């Protein structure tokens, strides 16, 4: 049953551009994919190590700017700029992890917020490098041999590959002793240390992987919208990621993806359904209802429901 559903889902994902011809819908799906990578990335920290990063827009933005600058200024290929963007954000994640080594809870949150704030200020004020608030227009679309991935249907597959890669990385980590060490850190730190889990090592590792993944999303975003400005650092992006992870189900593998799909599509659906005055209100009410009735998120609620039906 589950295998059938998974197979159908994969088939659906692989053929999507062929039956979803409407470019607007395809755009929504691509954005959902980019946010899916971000939500997976945040979930690694929030869902598994239990540390809330409110600086994820910072990693996202570093990835976007790195990739945009390398392709624009140095005229590197996208395929070289992407891994560089991932590496540089991973490095930033390592720095934050080291800084926050002994900090947990609210203090960890504060460090990550300040980090994103500082990076955002740099992007606005370092005019020579970033072109300031005007941003960087004309980021080139990736090319694959003779083909350009400029068309939405082509870019969709690039994003799908990014989502799949991120998901596999998360799934493999979570199913290993490394993932168990992440959980141990969330559940009971002193106990984890007592059985030999070097907690700080695993917190730094989680931060590095999580940041690198957010950098991947940033690069995918930059070459999709083909314009990068300090807006990529907006706190709203971080909040959206948190909403996606929490609503989908933090600490589950599928939760962030479900959350990303839902909360990318929802604002668009509301835009079609109601006038702008009601959009944010409806969004807020839906969010409150969701958190109220499914406090652990959609995916855990579905899992519990299935268990009750088939004991």
């Amino acid at each position, binding site marked *: 049953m589950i295998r059938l559903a998974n197979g159908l889902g994969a088939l659906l994902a692989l053929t999507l551009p062929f039956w979803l011809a409407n470019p607007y819908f395809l755009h929504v799906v691509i954005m959902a994919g980019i946010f899916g990578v971000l939500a997976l990335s945040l979930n690694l920290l929030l869902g598994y190590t239990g540390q809330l990063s409110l600086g994820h827009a910072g990693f996202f933005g570093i990835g976007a700017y790195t990739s945009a600058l390398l392709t624009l200024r140095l005229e590197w290929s996208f395929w070289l700029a992407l891994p560089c963007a991932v590496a540089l954000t991973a490095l930033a994640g390592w720095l934050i992890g080291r800084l926050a080594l002994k900090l947990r809870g609210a203090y960890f949150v504060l460090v990550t917020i300040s980090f994103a704030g500082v990076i955002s200020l740099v992007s606005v004020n370092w005019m020579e490098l970033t072109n300031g608030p005007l941003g960087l227009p004309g980021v080139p679309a990736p090319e694959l041999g003779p083909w350009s991935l400029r068309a939405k249907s082509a870019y969709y597959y690039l994003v799908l590959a990014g989502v799949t890669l991120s998901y596999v990385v998360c799934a493999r980590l979570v199913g290993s*002793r*490394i993932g168990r060490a992440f959980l141990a850190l969330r559940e009971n730190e002193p106990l984890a*240390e*007592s*059985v030999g889990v*070097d907690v700080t090592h695993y917190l730094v590792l989680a931060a590095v992987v999580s940041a690198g993944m957010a950098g991947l999303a940033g690069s995918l975003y930059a070459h999709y919208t083909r314009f990068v400005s300090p807006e990529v650092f907006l706190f709203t992006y971080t909040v959206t990621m948190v909403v996606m992870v929490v609503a989908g189900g933090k600490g589950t593998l599928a939760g962030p993806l479900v959350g990303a799909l839902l909360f990318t599509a929802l604002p668009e659906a509301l835009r079609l359904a109601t006038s702008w005055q009601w959009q944010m209100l409806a969004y807020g009410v839906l969010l409150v209802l969701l958190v109220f009735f499914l406090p652990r998120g959609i995916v855990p609620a579905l899992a519990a429901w299935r268990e009750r039906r088939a004991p």
Partner: protein
Amino acid sequence: MTLAVRDLAVQFGGVAALGGVSFEVRPGTITSVIGPNGAGKTTAFNAITGYLRPARGEVTWDGAPLTGLRPSAIARRGVVRTFQKTSVFPSLSVADNVAIGLHLRGTAGFLDVLLGRRRIRDEERHLAADAEAIIAFVGLVHRRREIASALPYGEQRLVELAVALAATPRLLLLDEPGAGMTSGEKDVVIELIRNIRGRGITVLLVEHDMRMVMGISDTVIVLNHGRVIAEGAPAAIQADPDVIRAYLGTSSDRS
């Protein structure tokens, strides 16, 4: 494989919680540390296992110093502790709790995991089998799929024991393993501790229950006001006038 504690002292602000304690734990024995509340028993445990930095003194294990190491590094050397207050991974199943305890038995590194190497899958299978064996050893097979925090108190303490055993200790420090248990549950724990020693694991125990202490210990160390006031076989300790005085609270300086 001897644990040697030399002149171990811990200060909390101006208060000496531990004022220069020395003792040795001989390999293959069960050694108990007893003493009135506030005598420094748990403080000594915390200082030995790296949770507290001692103001002075040294702890060596098999001749090598443990002082200054992080708890996880001490665990890697085979010195593993449990906690006085129930301490499990609360929202995970019993099996997952023990799987975390097996951390040091695994070897999978970051790249192995990302590449999904076959060796790692084999290792996971072995670890799962190890976990099952440990869960059976503490008698929680019927609970293996249940969430740790949902178990009755006594069984949570068994989970703790299983998690500690999973870390392959050569010296196991148990901080009041019988606290809050019914006498039936205590009998189970007593039997378990004997079996643990039977597996060649040295046990250092902090415990208030005298029936338990006198029943299983090879050596008893008595702490009072942060100092060792007696050390010896259970029978000798029970007859020691200093110990009786410490426990009954009639000290010589009152007369």
